[in-house]
């Protein structure tokens, strides 16, 4: 996978390689933020749902 990205980036014109790397790293950060946000949401929920019983 890493080799695939490396080859892809190396195939770009030299002037585009650095900004594209920055952009991809930025997008990776964004994606991880979303995943982190979701994980925090899930671990904050009780593991078992509330069962309502009327008294």
């Amino acid at each position, binding site marked *: 996978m890493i080799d695939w990205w490396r080859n892809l*980036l190396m195939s770009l014109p030299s002037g585009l390689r650095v900004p594209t*790397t920055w952009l991809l*790293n930025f997008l990776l*950060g964004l994606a991880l933020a979303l995943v982190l*946000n979701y994980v925090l949401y899930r671990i*904050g929920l009780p593991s078992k*749902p509330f069962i309502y019983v*009327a008294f």
Partner: protein
Amino acid sequence: MTFFRPVGFLVGLAVGLVGCSLLARWVSARGYHDTFTRFHVRLSPEAHYYPTIEEMRGIVRARCRPDQILVIVGGNSIFHGVGQPVGKIWTEELQRLLGPRYCVINFAFRGALCTDGGAYVAESLRREFPRQIYVANTSPFSVPEAYGVEPYRYLFWEARARGLLESFPEREQRVAEFFARDFSVGDRFELWGRFGLDRVLRYHDLWNWVGFRYFFTIPNPLTPARPQATWAREKFKDEEVDFETIPIHERFKAESRDAEMAIVRGFSETHVTRTYRGGWAIRWKSRLEFEAAARAAFPDDLKRRTLIMLSRNSPIYLNQLTREERTREEFVYRESTAAWRSFGYRALDYGADYAPADFGDRTHLTASGGRKLAKKVAEEVVTLATDLGYHSKVEAKR
């Protein structure tokens, strides 16, 4: 060539977290429940959907104008309207009776206390909607814990962590005692981290919105299998059963009579003791526990806008009490009402004169019972609004 750019990555991470937080704040503040009636069973903790305090505040903002008198209904399944389908919910009747000068929102939850959910929303909106009345039900000498009850207690911690609640000594003392009694240092740290982090990042607000509008990601017993498991929660309509379609003999089954009668007797039995003159007195433990909690349940300035309704049981069971038990029952309701009033709350009971057909089971009301309740609450709300100076007596009669 370096393929990993830590600065770019960290900027992306920061932008992502800030963006999620801003988006969550924006959608929650505006409200996204377009056809809100109440938090029905598939929009509740029973279905792993935990409405957030901001989400509830957004519902109020979307539905009510600041020039209306806000009436937030809290309490348990009785005030939620169990057994009353959409179109027959007692709070809809309450809205009809009060008219367009009032805005009624039903934030009652099944199994909640009078201090849960809606109470925190109302308190948090005290400046935005200064003309507000909070109505909730309870049973005699039931302890109104300032921090609510599970599974709805998260709303208290959430509102508190976000600085939305008033700080006053009685409640702080109560919370401190709760911490000392039930929380280890680790539990406190977890609570602080959980709600402190959510205050900043707003992940519950964000994913509730996604779950409500687009797709739900939490498996739960009510929608265990796909495709329903992942459907946006807004696709599920409020499909409450209608008690009035069930014959009365099926609502009150003979095999559950003894268990129900034990509960009915317990309403008064657990709180009284005999006096040497043969009368009744409230047990000191019941009274002290109630008084300590009632003092801390609502801030002093909000107690007088709080209407507490004490729920009665069905006459099908009450009529089976002995004469002595009936006397005891009346005594406990009278004392409980007086106890609430002694702290500055408006309090009264309802249901004593209801017919068997007004109840769907021992405690929940049918649509006909709901209409009677709505009438009584509407009268009391108008009187309270007048007393609080929300409108004049002349306006109240219009």
